């Protein structure tokens, strides 16, 4: 029973979509075009002179083993952040959904960390794990575990994943909770009467019914892990030790804004643009098929 409205003429529809087109142009097409254009040049930092170098910026990048390694780092980081924050978000949502008393209080408290900016979250976690004054590192030392994320890559990775996932759990919790509450109680009750256990009900009814939300969160979380986490990484590790926490977007940031290599930075943003494009196509083409609306 789809409703469709047809307009006569073209100016009214054009007018109605114009604001959206304008926004897309100003904030997406124009900067992307600039990035593609700049990726073909090697400018000096002050913008006094520039040289056309064709695809040399891309050649320079793809011959850098550390740049290639940062793809792997990005995959590990994004997967860990998305999976851990979604699993915990779902777990907490399932618990909160069953609450009878004080649900509002719990829900509010669980959503709270989302209000904290990534860079600040980074500083908070850094504070707890700081080698000099951190409480967590102090207790770990008491347990006989030497914590020094400035030197040990796996510890640094763990810490940035922890700090990046933490605020995300709230976000995922919120969506999962809404999803859970939208599932009609009657279906679950009917299954319970038929003798299905909690886990059976969860696996065969709740999870499939949550799939549109799970899919949405997967896309959003991966985009988050790819782009929005650089504040966390900047404050905690600055990409170190030995680039073990340098994800693609952090490398782009540090090459462009710390090292002033704008040509390479532009080339990296073009590569990222293509990568995220491919990722989105894959998600919609292959994963979305398994989603029931």
């Amino acid at each position, binding site marked *: 029973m789809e409703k469709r409205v047809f307009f006569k003429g073209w100016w009214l529809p054009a007018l109605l979509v114009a604001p959206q087109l304008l926004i897309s142009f100003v904030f997406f097409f124009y900067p992307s075009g600039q990035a593609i254009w700049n990726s073909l040049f090697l400018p*000096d*930092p002050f*913008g*006094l002179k520039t*040289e056309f170098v064709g695809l040399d910026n891309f050649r320079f990048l793809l011959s850098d083993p*550390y740049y290639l390694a940062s793809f792997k780092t990005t995959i590990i980081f994004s997967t860990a952040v998305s999976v851990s924050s979604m699993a915990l978000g779902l777990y907490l949502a399932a618990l909160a959904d069953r609450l009878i008393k004080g649900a509002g209080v719990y829900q509010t408290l669980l959503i709270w960390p989302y209000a904290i900016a990534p860079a600040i979250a980074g500083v908070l976690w850094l504070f707890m794990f700081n080698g000099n004054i951190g409480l967590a590192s102090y207790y770990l030392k008491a347990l006989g575990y030497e914590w020094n994320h400035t030197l040990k890559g796996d510890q640094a990775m763990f810490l940035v994943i922890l700090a990046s996932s933490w605020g995300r759990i709230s976000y995922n919790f919120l969506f999962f909770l809404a999803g859970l509450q939208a599932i009609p109680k009657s279906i679950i009750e009917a299954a319970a009467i038929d003798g299905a256990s909690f886990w059976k009900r969860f696996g065969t009814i709740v999870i499939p019914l949550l799939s549109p939300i799970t899919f949405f969160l997967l896309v959003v979380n991966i985009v988050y892990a790819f782009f929005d986490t650089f504040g966390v990484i900047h404050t905690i590790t600055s990409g*170190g030790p*030995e680039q073990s926490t340098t994800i693609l977007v952090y490398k782009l940031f540090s090459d462009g804004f*710390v090292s002033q*290599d704008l040509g390479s930075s532009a080339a990296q943003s073009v590569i990222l643009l293509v990568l995220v494009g491919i990722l989105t196509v894959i998600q919609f083409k292959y994963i979305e098929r398994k989603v029931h609306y």
Partner: protein
Amino acid sequence: MKTIKAIIASLALFAMFAGTSAQAKVEIQWWHAFGGRLGELLDEQVNKFNASQDKYTVVHTRKGNYSETLNAGIAAFRAGQHPNILMVFEVGTASLMAAKGAYVPMYQLMKDAGQRFNPNGFVSAVSGYYTTTDGKMLSMPYNSSTPVLWVNKDLMKKAGLDPEMDLSTWKRVGNALDAAKAKGIDMPFCTCWHSWVHLENFSAYHNIPFASKSNGFAGLDTELAFNSPVHIKHIQTLGKWAQEGKFKYMGRRNEAGKNFRAGECMLMTESSAGYAGIKKEAKFEFGIRHLPYYGATEAPQNTIIGGSSLWALSGKSKEENKATAAFLAFLSRTDIQAKWHQDTGYLGVTTAAAKATKKSGFYKSNPGTDLAGIQMMRNKVTQNSKGLRLGSFDQIRGIIDEEMEGVYNGTKTAQVALDSAVKRGNVLLRRFERANK
């Protein structure tokens, strides 16, 4: 009607008056990287200048740390919104120098403004960093320091060592660390600014090249050279100490300073400018020593500086450039320099300031504060000890830090790490050369 006319006339008069009085003072902007105690001292200098005359007003703004300040300046320059004076740390010097047209060279600025200025009044080990090979001074040295060895005398005693023992060579330092470890001292050694102390200054101190072409002074086609056997020996020693728990790595910048000030670390290599913080916070007896060296090379050469200089950016009016010249000349005054030197532990960058400080008896009442100056000026500078002038050097330092982390955590040998750092750094030098042809 008459009253309205009178009001308008008086308003116009007032506007004219207000206009002229606002125009009378030329305002210039200074972007810098100093907060905390240093920021207060900087503010004091600016206020003193503003009060000392009525033609110019200097407005200073903190733009974050050194790298952030440089980046803010560069971004503002591209947008045409840059300040008159930009503080640039020594690592960014080559980037500025290569950007001809982005700045007014110091000698030019002073000449155009008719300001009396004596570039020879600066300590040559400092001004050499900011002077072209044909002797033209491009920027004004502001704060300069050099690495020294800081000693926690209380911990030395606890380790059963004589707190006044000879620590002039790395071998002797190694012996002291062995003793400290045996007595259960948790952090016998720590260091700040790894690349700056243990490779850049290390090279100058042992009179070996850090990079070819006089460490980059003689041309953009320079190549890194810090993977010589002497360098490798030193970094391998640090790696060994790290593995044995005698040296604890706390981070790339000056993180280890906290551990030293808290009394946890026995020996620390850090800038002489750590003085202000250590003097304020240390609840133990501390000492300052010369940076250790390897006995194999006869007497040590000199160490080089870290710190910043002030650049006059281009594209400003003649009047504003005059104000900039006046302010920079003011900063190089002996009384200003001497006070800055004594307050901060930075070097006295003019010979007159160093003399005045000596005369005032400051070194006698604050033992060790003169070591940094002596260490820098103990010998005539050589090709290897003049300083560094390498493009993209902030980035190269990042690479060095990364590779050294590999040595400290035991995943790489010093040979592999330094070879790799040289190779990766050279790629960036070639890229810089290409962008600045």
